[in-house]
């Protein structure tokens, strides 16, 4: 199976210090859930996901060149 390269934007409490976007190499046709396992972040049922600006579910499939945003709930007011 060939690889795909995606851009990952982690938001809020998931963002690591001094880090903006990151590039991630995955196997082609991986789901978001599978990609998260490569990122060393804790999975959570309440994360919001978007691929290329569209809201998707955790079982959405990623393709080469996609931009994935992972958005946890935050409550600062």
């Amino acid at each position, binding site marked *: 199976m060939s690889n795909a390269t995606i851009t990952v934007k982690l*938001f809020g*409490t998931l*963002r690591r210090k001094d880090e903006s976007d990151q590039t991630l190499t995955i196997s082609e046709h991986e789901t978001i859930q599978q990609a998260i396992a490569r990122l060393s972040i804790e999975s959570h049922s*309440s994360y*919001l996901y978007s691929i290329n600006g569209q*809201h998707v579910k955790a079982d959405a499939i990623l393709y080469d060149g996609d931009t994935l945003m992972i958005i946890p709930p*935050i*409550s600062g*007011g």
Partner: protein
Amino acid sequence: MLAQLNTEDMERFKRQLTLNGYTKEHQIKLKNSTALIAGVGGVGGTTALYLAIAGIGRLKLVHSGALTSSNLNRQILMTEDWIGKARVDCAKETIHRIASGVTVDIYNERMIAENTAGFVRDSDIAVSARPNFPERCALNAACIKHNVPMVEGAMFDMDAYLFSIKPGITPCFHCLFKDADHRWQELGFPVLGALSGTLGCMMAVEAIKVITGYGSPLYSKMLLFNLANMDFNTIAINRNPRCQVCGSPAKREGEEI
């Protein structure tokens, strides 16, 4: 019957009445509207101030607790000689010094399921800016139940997001976030006043748009930004037809993630 603009209003607001597409009718709607501000911290306090100076008729400020020294890096409605004073009292006093014509009702309370409907019922819009998940959920549920539009905005560190909710039409808070992040610390999140103020200003703009019909609110869209990198993104967001708060009763069982 709607209160009309008087001579003083026409002078006070003449510069915003020349905004492209913004008319006296928009300003009259603002003058005759009530905004519920849930939280007068760095975000909600800024929203309240900018709604007041824009000419909103009435503000209802809900926030429990007294001002502390550690609030002062982001509080634009409160001064250091007021430490120990109830925050809603401080906010009301400052708003009245700046915009004496605005009616300001204050409630030194937390928002819980039992009291939130009472705050929402006679409001034209709600602004969600409490620093915890349960109060945001309570406000969202009450707004959906009583058909009151809501502007949702939250921040952490140098990140923030916001979107607007038209009950029954666009995604509600629970459509997007069902559960709190268990790591969230209500009194421990990092905050720079310039960021919470930026978000508060944006939420004021959203509230003005929703109330008056001017411009295009963030309906079914979420704006996310990071001010460390000046990175701004907008994503489309979807309703959950099985949402237990805003979904149709027939579909609520077996809510999807």
